[in-house]
């Protein structure tokens, strides 16, 4: 699908803006009730609702403009979108660019947006200052795929905007043509990886913005129709992946990258901004997740395919979605450059269970598995249960980062990763954790070598669980929303308070973190100081049982044997009647059949399907089908008979 014709869209947006001014939103919707998906699903109604949400983000940004206070970069962008006060905006552009610049690729994409949105509005002096800044400010290219997505999308678009210019007019000494070719080379390479062996920074709670925003900009402004199409198709791809892995708009299951907040308050993430914008089924995070405004400013150029929207909001049955992703690039100390990540997500009305097979994906911020439950309002709710090994390892950091060993761990606490080297962390993956999931049963086994820093596992028990019952059988039962949960620690444990983190301003700028003990009213940590260890979690809907006691009885009746030495191993029959045998480091066996991870498809489920290496994703819901084919750069929509 191509973006709507610009003129028609401009007229429509202007009309909508006028309407919105007349019904000015006093408060942003994220302070209001939880939105519900519309019942009127005609295309024009849905489009209008989407643009209303987008315009709310812009309106809120503009409403924060104060007389005699300089415009922020976000505010001047919102004014450019609305074609307001071009002289004031031009003056502010000049002021901002007179200062020393910083922010690297996070500088590049906002200024790309200013350049494009302002190309017909800004004064010649302001446009010249923007152009000059791409000569005088030398942004870092970064070391991560999201960095490169932002860097090269921005450089691509700016090179198209200023073609035929010599190398001495660009920060990196390369001509427009050279920059265009290099940027295109990287973007095609990344798209090829993502559409053949899976996305690297998969299902990120925040970093989804670092991909979706650049792809939207390419879809909006790339002059080359092939790159414009690629941007659009990748955005569809990302949104389809988001839709299929959400429940009520909240991203579920494993994430290559999340953070200490989002790993327990699952809604509180930029991903929820995209669910709010695209699907309208969960509140946006406060301030539109920080980066949401950068999507909103060009969001009118994207139209969410109805098939993707329906995957997010129209769930008439439970489903399992299996996806193939990949780890971050491993520079050293690994036999493979990028390890395959075999994801499973089981989504039901009342809860979701998700995992990948364990091991390292990203060195710091990976979340491997969890059970999350549905709640009427996700704000402030810690609706998740899982366990993890709190790995802290300079060698692992060196595997993924090209640094000398000692400074990395020391520096992480001041680099926005405060929990990396603390014993009660619950964020992160470990090479000593192996996981198997079948539907709503998860078995996580741990075999932590002697001498490992933090030789224990942490289980997360939310403040929002009710009826937490430590049973003499060894199971711990609890209820989260309409889900019954059973957690079986395989080794001894004790309860601890889970410390959290508070971000504070640091002397000399930036920020620092302070650990905070939430005390008895907060979340709890199941601390198990045994190197050979394991966790079994079984979930079910409350509606499947007459009572909580019946659920407990059913769990206690499950055949279960396990051992921890010499190698952790579990044999059990799940609540769904599957006979599972899982030994640490060995292939899981279900009903006598070994799980074959080598046959894992790029996507496999009722809604998303793609073969490994295919570059072709089929998106399905009911009779609706969209096929994204990167081999032919085509989008094909069908209504199935």
């Amino acid at each position, binding site marked *: 699908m191509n973006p709507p014709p610009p003129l028609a869209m401009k007229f429509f947006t202007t009309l909508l803006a006028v309407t919105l001014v007349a019904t000015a939103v006093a408060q942003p919707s994220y302070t209001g009730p939880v939105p519900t998906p519309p019942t009127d699903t005609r295309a024009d109604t849905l489009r209008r609702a989407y643009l209303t949400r987008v315009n709310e983000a812009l309106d809120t940004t503009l409403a924060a403009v104060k007389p005699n206070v300089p415009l922020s970069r976000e505010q001047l962008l919102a004014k450019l979108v609305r074609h307001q006060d071009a002289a004031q905006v031009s003056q502010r552009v000049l002021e901002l660019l007179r*200062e*020393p*610049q*910083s*922010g*690297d*690729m*996070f*500088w590049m994409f906002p200024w790309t947006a200013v350049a494009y949105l302002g190309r017909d509005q800004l004064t010649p002096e302001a446009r010249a200052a923007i152009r000059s800044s791409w*000569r*005088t*400010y*030398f942004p*870092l*290219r*970064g*070391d*991560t795929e999201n*960095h*490169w997505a932002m860097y*090269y999308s921005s450089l691509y678009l700016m090179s198209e905007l200023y073609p035929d210019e010599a*190398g*001495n007019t*660009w*920060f*990196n*000494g*390369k001509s427009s043509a050279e920059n265009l070719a*290099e*940027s295109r*080379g*990287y973007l095609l*390479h990344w798209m090829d990886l993502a559409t053949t062996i899976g996305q690297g920074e998969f299902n990120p709670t925040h970093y989804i913005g670092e991909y979706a925003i650049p792809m939207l900009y390419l879809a909006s402004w790339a002059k080359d129709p092939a790159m414009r199409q690629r941007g659009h198709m990748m955005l569809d791809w990302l949104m389809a992946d988001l839709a299929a892995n959400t429940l009520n708009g909240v991203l579920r299951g494993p994430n290559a990258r999340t953070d200490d907040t989002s790993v327990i308050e699952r809604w509180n993430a930029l991903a929820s901004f995209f669910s709010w914008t695209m699907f309208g089924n969960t509140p946006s995070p406060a301030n539109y997740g920080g980066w949401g405004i950068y999507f909103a400013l060009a969001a009118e150029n994207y139209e969410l395919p109805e098939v993707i929207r329906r995957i997010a909001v129209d769930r008439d049955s439970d489903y399992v979605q299996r996806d193939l992703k990949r780890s971050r690039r491993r*520079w*050293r*100390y*690994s*036999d*493979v*450059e990028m390890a395959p990540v075999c994801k499973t997500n089981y989504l039901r009305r009342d809860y979701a269970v998700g995992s990948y097979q364990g091991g390292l994906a990203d060195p710091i911020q990976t979340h491997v598995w969890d059970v999350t439950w549905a709640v009427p309002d996700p704000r402030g709710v810690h609706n998740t249960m899982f366990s993890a090994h709190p790995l802290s390892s300079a060698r692992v950091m*060196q595997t993924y980062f*090209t640094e*000398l*060993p*000692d*400074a990395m761990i020391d*520096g992480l606490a*001041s*680099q*926005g990763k405060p929990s990396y080297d603390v014993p009660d962390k619950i964020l992160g993956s470990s090479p000593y954790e192996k996981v198997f999931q079948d539907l709503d049963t998860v078995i996580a086994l741990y075999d932590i070598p002697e001498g490992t820093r933090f030789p224990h596992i942490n289980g997360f028990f939310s403040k929002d669980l009710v009826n937490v019952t430590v049973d003499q059988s060894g199971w711990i039962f609890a209820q989260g929303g309409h889900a019954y949960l059973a957690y079986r620690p395989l080794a001894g444990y004790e309860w601890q308070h889970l410390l959290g983190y508070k971000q504070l301003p*640091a002397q*000399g*700028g*930036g920020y620092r973190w302070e650990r905070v003990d939430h005390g008895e009213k907060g979340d709890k940590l199941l601390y198990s100081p045994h190197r050979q260890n394991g966790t079994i979690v079984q979930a079910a809907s409350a509606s499947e049982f007459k009572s909580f006691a019946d659920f407990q009885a059913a769990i206690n009746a499950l055949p279960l044997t396990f051992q921890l030495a010499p190698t952790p191993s579990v044999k059990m029959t799940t609540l769904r009647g599957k006979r599972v045998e899982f030994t640490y480091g060995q292939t899981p066996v279900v009903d006598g059949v070994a799980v074959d991870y080598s046959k894992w498809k790029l996507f496999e489920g009722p809604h998303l399907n793609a073969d490994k290496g295919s570059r072709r994703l089929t998106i399905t819901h009911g009779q609706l089908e969209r096929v994204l084919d990167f081999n032919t750069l085509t989008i094909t929509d069908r209504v199935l008979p």
Partner: protein
Amino acid sequence: MNPPSRSLALLVLLALPLLPACATTPAHDLYLFGAVNSKGRVSGSRDTSLNGVYRRTDTGAFEHIGISYPAMLNGSFDPRDPRVFYVASLSGVLCTTDGGQSWRVGTSWDVTEPKCVRVDPTAPDTVYAALPDGVIVSPDRGRTWERRETGLPARGKYAQVITVDRTRAGRVLAGCETGIYLTEDSARSWHSVLPTKDTVNDLQQSPHDPQLWIAVTQSVGAQLSHDGGLTWQKIPGVPSAHALYNIAFDPASPQRLALASWTYGLLTSEDAGATWTERNTGLPVPHRVWRTAIDPDTGRLHAAIIDEALFISDDFGRTWKNGGMPASRIQSFAFVPKAAK
């Protein structure tokens, strides 16, 4: 690319009279590659410090040159013209032909985070770079680059350092995650000369004896070769439980060597490596020495303490004084002959 206007105003970071009182005009320029205010910096940080290349002025102060770029690791100069030099940076290999006033990223998207760049001193059109995933070579002063990795392992070729034998064009040693590799045909083929299980962090050829090489490593201490890098022996007396970061020879004295380490601080030898002494008294605690260097003109010992400052010693580490560059992370030193200008 032109430098930002703000860098036209040189940032003079040292007010102290840092050149030894007895010194005449030094024969070498000292360049530093690094950054200030690095603690907590990640890609995307809001920080407008001046970073990248600094050069010592005749007063002993350091001036910032050219672009501000906080992720430069080391540089290598064309012996025919020191205005031509190459820098290993996060964004690729940076090349300048006018003393750092303008730059070009010589590599493309497929090269990231080179760790070390070196000009072949006897064939200076040829430039080598150690990468996290191998080795690249430019035959044309950094304009074009090609991978030359035959003989390096498919996995295990993370290269931290690359050093060219100054006596023979095309003879190069690379310090990798799996040991030291040697090429004698300009990187067209490599073979292992010292296997290790962790990364080799630095490799240097003695300025006094071209057959003598020293390597420092993450887990097998310091290694010595007397035959041009063909065979290696561990240097007794140098600890090996923790990583060593770099080695410095004193070009004026074959007896004097220095080693930098996060854990051990500054280690020196004044008997050609037979015995070693920690020289940390007077350095900040903890004495995390990121890099060390010895001035070829004065014998002054330099210790870059990570995120603290540059420290200098005129008695080979027995006493230290603050040499400026506060809150800096100096990644490398380069002494470049002035006579070559």
